[in-house]
């Protein structure tokens, strides 16, 4: 137990002196790095813009209240498009992620090289935000819903794939052994011993990703990939902040609803 003597009285210390000093040194390094980062940011910032930031903020909020409810009717179809982007995107992503997870899981992967390939696909998909995929896809397949759906799907592959392959790696080995010992083929072992164990996790992951995708698909329109984001972008470009506020309220409502649905379903399956 580390003890330090102060005024001839032994005082208990939480850590050994060396360890404590190392921790302080770590904090010191982090502080220096932070100051360096701050200097770079500060050099690239036009500080004059900040002098009237509070006036800008006040006028922004002032123009958002009250929201312009007259466009609500025109927003319902884009909202339905947004739901479709999220749902179809999730479905596409899941269909691709499902076999990929089996290739990526250590205990079901047929070959180490296939496993490395699957892991590379999962990491690439996870690293890149749906919005970036959407920018790319808008230049490739043109603006519209399809670009949004594929963007959402590409981002979902990594997320669902990663969580699912971790679930596969955590299965109980006993049922696998039992089914294998009956002389079942490779596919039968997967179908009767692995699948029943991962299905609840799979359903939970899918609905969780669908919930996230609803949020993400609301902004895909900013880059032209369809949905309610298109209307938001138009309203922002027109500086019609009252309409922007209406879009925000609708997005807020949809997100709360999808979160509630997702929580219900996950509660039911897990």
């Amino acid at each position: 137990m580390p003890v330090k003597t102060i005024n001839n009285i032994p005082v208990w210390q939480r850590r050994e002196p060396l360890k404590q000093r190392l921790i302080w040194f770590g904090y010191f390094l982090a502080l220096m790095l932070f100051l360096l980062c701050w200097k770079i940011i500060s050099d690239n910032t036009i500080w004059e813009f900040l002098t009237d930031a509070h006036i800008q903020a006040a006028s922004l909020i002032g123009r958002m209240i009250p929201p312009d409810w007259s466009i609500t009717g025109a927003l319902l179809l884009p909202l339905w498009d947004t739901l479709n982007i999220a749902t179809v995107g999730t479905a596409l992503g899941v269909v691709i992620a499902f076999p990929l997870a089996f290739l990526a899981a250590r205990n079901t992967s047929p070959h180490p090289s296939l496993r490395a390939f699957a892991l590379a696909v999962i990491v690439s998909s996870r690293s890149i935000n749906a919005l970036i995929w959407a920018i790319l896809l808008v230049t490739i397949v043109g603006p519209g819903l399809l670009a949004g759906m594929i963007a959402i799907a590409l981002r979902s592959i990594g997320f669902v794939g990663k969580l699912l392959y971790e679930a596969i790696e955590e299965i109980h080995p006993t049922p696998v052994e039992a089914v294998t010992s009956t002389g079942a083929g490779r596919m039968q072992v997967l179908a009767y011993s692995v699948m029943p164990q991962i299905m609840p996790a799979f359903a939970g992951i899918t609905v969780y990703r669908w919930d996230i995708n609803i949020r993400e698909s609301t902004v895909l329109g900013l880059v032209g990939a369809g949905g309610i984001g298109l209307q938001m972008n138009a309203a922002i470009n027109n500086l019609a902040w009252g309409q922007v506020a209406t879009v925000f309220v609708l997005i807020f409502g949809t997100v709360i609803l999808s979160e509630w649905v997702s929580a219900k379903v996950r509660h039911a399956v897990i």
Partner: protein
Amino acid sequence: MSQSSQILDPRLLAAKSGRWHPKPMISNATLRWGINAAVIVYLVLLYFSVDINWSRVAQGMDRGVAFMGSFLTPDFISRGGEIMVGLRESLTMTFAATVIGILLAIPVGLGAARNIAPAPVYFFCRAIIALSRTFQEIIIAILFVAMFGFGPLAGVVTLAFATIGFMAKLLAEDIEDAQRDPMEAVKATGASWLQWINYAVQPQVMPRLIGLSLYRLDINFRESAVIGIVGAGGIGATLNTSINRYDYDTSAAVLLVIIGIVLMSEYLSGYVRKWTA
């Protein structure tokens, strides 16, 4: 279970005659068929309401192939300067925003933990968390760019704001799950509130806090690549410009840089988590 009820079980009987089927995942038949019917109705609605311009898609296919091909020939050199500047800005924004966000998230997280905060503080902090978590980073970035002007400062504020909600929520949950015994023991010694937090609460949540901080650093880097699109600085601006110019070799290079850094941070955070746990 008695012998007779085992024999009468229809599933066992079916298994004995070789007609066994695994149990369906949803045991309630009405719910199961209800979900199936809902899916079919949805697909029909989808078919009639979504219009996709397939001829435009066909036109873009060669561009898609060109983009795929450019992943094999990424061009790090010809726009190397812009990539480096964007990357440096993204990394500095990420680190600064994560530090600021976590420092602000700690008091909010303490206030949002049911077991250590009084009710008014609790509701106030929970409101901050809900506000920060509802909207996408990019929406927050649009608002902050409108307030602070273009540049990395708007990005830092955006990422820090998003970090507060994320970290404070998870920290509060962790504090709520902490063991009560050490808290009571330290309180019984007559410790002040700060000493109590420092010796009873902090050691219990610190390993998870470090892990989450690294995870958030990773998320903030990925997000920093996005908020550049609306003018909040970082590598996103470089990427957006290269895509709009159809300069796919540079885009591929930027994407590969992002993937590489995320991969590296994932390895690093796994290592640090093992070391602190």
